């Protein structure tokens, strides 16, 4: 009998083309995803006069540089951004990969589109020149971000060198998430616990009842932020939820092939007794709605808690880190989380811009008004269309939100959607680094429902109070 294997082990083994004696492995890439920041990689291909090796398994869409004011090239104000978006369409024509361009209702954030189109599948390797590629692990794929040189290598060969097999880590969340507690709160609680370097270099498998019960949308939010825990990738074993989500999606297998695929996917979950290099367990019942107060995703607290006091920190280094974060964020030590003012709200990004996120936020906004400037940016044209069919756009608009076109938008602001200096932005994205949403911008990461609650009160607010009927 062979040794018990984890989900990660199984996928790795099936994609290892060559394993060198020194441990370096050449991995086959099942799906390669591209976005509008891939120009450098195509230039490399052209310089070397190499063809795109495998156009059938290469998919792309513009997301970083598109305007969220209008869904066409003309809405992009600056020539350099227009050139990146039109350059990508040009590369798609030239090299023949599948491209969901501007104006195509399927266009959107690449990490939203992969699952939505059934491009993301269990049991395969997936890469993209973007760190949040880890999202796709939610369906049981081994998915991770790569740099531009690696993108070029994958374009030219559909393979990727890994100098060794990464370590593995299992994160179990036991119990059940409480009312008003979401997948985003779970991942923020995990990062607060293990730290932003807690998963460095590792592939995380999220296991236990909380993830079993979680929707695919929720698993996508969790796996998305694996990178904020330092990990290479995050994954959840495929199960009936996964199959139900994928069935009938355009690029998923159909008919007899579907049955064959599902039979295979059922063999993927980690065997009993599979070994992990590290293991962490959290109690899901104890997780509360979360928000970040500082400039690192690990600077997160339950909404019922308080901003830490640097003086109480155990080490000088920690003291300094907290003090400098509070200085940048303009917060005072010990203030209650729900006293932090919010001047702007962004609901969007590959972490939280799927239909379930918009439904949850709209449910909080129903019959209420935002006190501050607030945006909802759907993750794809299809999410937007679905939301409009359900009347969610009207709920957002009636609450005073702007209802925008799909794209990355204010998550990193590379399309020009920036948060002003000194402004506190409740954001459903994944990074609260200094300057991430614009120079001097103060980001507070939270779930879509918490962001909606902050929009209507003008400060960080425990969404459970609004859900219980408070005005």
């Amino acid at each position, binding site marked *: 009998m062979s040794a018990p294997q984890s989900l990660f082990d199984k996928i790795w083994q*099936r*994609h290892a*083309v*060559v394993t*060198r004696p*020194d*441990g*370096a492995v*050449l991995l*086959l890439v*099942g799906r390669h995803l591209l976005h509008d*920041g891939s*120009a*450098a990689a195509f*230039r490399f291909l052209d310089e*070397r006069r*190499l063809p795109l090796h495998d156009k059938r398994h290469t998919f792309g869409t513009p997301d*970083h540089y598109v305007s969220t004011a209008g869904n066409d090239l003309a809405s992009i104000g600056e020539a350099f*951004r227009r050139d*990146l978006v039109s350059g990508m369409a040009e590369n798609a024509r030239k090299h023949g990969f599948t491209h969901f361009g501007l104006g195509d209702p399927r266009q959107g954030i690449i990490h939203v589109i992969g699952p939505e189109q059934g491009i993301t*599948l269990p049991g395969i390797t997936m890469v993209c*020149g*973007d*760190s949040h590629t880890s999202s796709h692990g939610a369906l049981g794929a081994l998915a991770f*971000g*790569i*740099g*531009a*040189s*690696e993108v*070029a*290598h994958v374009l*030219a*060969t559909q*393979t990727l*060198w890994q*100098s*060794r097999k990464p370590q593995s880590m299992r994160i179990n969340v036991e119990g059940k998430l409480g009312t008003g507690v979401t997948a985003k709160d779970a991942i923020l609680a995990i990062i607060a616990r293990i730290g*932003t*370097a807690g998963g460095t*270099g590792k592939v995380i498998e999220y296991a236990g009842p909380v993830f079993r019960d979680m929707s695919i949308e929720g698993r996508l939010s969790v796996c998305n932020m694996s990178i904020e825990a*330092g990990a*290479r990738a995050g994954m959840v074993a495929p199960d009936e939820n996964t199959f139900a989500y994928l069935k009938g999606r355009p690029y998923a*297998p159909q008919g007899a*092939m579907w049955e*064959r*695929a599902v039979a*295979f996917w059922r063999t993927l979950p980690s065997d009993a007794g599979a070994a992990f290099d590290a293991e962490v367990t959290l109690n899901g019942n104890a997780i509360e709605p979360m928000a970040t107060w500082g400039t*690192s995703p690990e600077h997160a607290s339950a909404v019922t808690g308080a901003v830490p006091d640097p003086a109480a920190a155990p080490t000088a*280094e920690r003291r300094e*880190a907290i003090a400098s974060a509070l200085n940048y964020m303009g917060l005072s030590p010990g203030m209650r989380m729900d006293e932090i003012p919010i001047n702007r709200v962004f609901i969007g990004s590959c972490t939280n811009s799927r239909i379930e996120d918009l439904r949850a936020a709209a449910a909080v906004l129903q019959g209420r008004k935002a006190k501050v400037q607030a945006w909802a940016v759907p993750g794809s044209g299809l999410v937007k269309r679905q939301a409009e069919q359900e009347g969610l756009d009207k709920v957002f608009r009636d609450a005073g939100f702007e209802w925008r076109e799909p794209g990355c938008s204010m998550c*990193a*602001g*590379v399309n020009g959607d*920036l948060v002003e200096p000194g402004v506190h932005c409740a954001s459903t994205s994944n*990074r609260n*680094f*200094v*300057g991430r949403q614009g*120079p001097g911008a103060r980001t507070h990461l939270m779930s879509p429902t918490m962001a909606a609650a902050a929009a209507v009160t003008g400060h960080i607010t425990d969404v459970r109070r609004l859900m219980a009927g408070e005005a």
Partner: protein
Amino acid sequence: MEPFSTVDAKAMPLDMTNVDTDQLVPARYLWRPRQDGYAEILFHDLRREPGFPLDAPAHKGAAIMVADRNFGCGSSREHAAWALVDSGFRVVIAPSFGDIFYSNSFKNGLLPIVLPEARCAELRAALARNPGTHLVVDLPAQTVTGPVGVNDGFSVDSFAVDPLRKELLIAGQDETGLTLSLAATIKGFVAGYAEAMPWV
């Protein structure tokens, strides 16, 4: 890519943990074409703050940086490595690195070296006391020596590096040539893969 063997150069200490790629290259400069160069973008926002070591006269021409934990964490942007290389850096020494940054560095002829946290702190302290002194990084021998010409904190440290990465860096080659030479092996593997998982 420039072949790498031994670098004998000024070393600059950077006393900051979790230097993320947004600090190395703010996202708003990512559109800039590679050929336009990224030297002036390196630490674009931080270098304007008083006391930031990058533009100190003593560090002019530094090719080695001694940093702290989790250097280069955050996004996958290779621009972070480009900005360091374009500014003349060939080596970054730190207790740990962001994963993708670590891998990107090799692809651009930048050698990331992991040394123990306490040793990095000693080196930074020695360099702070003696600004502008040299370290010698010998990739074939896998050693860091120095600070050179300074008595305090002087020693030789060995470091680990993956053999394939070392090989390519010394040769100044990227992986593509190596992979293309394995075309027949890949083709055979793909045939078996397609048979086992025809829906992919």
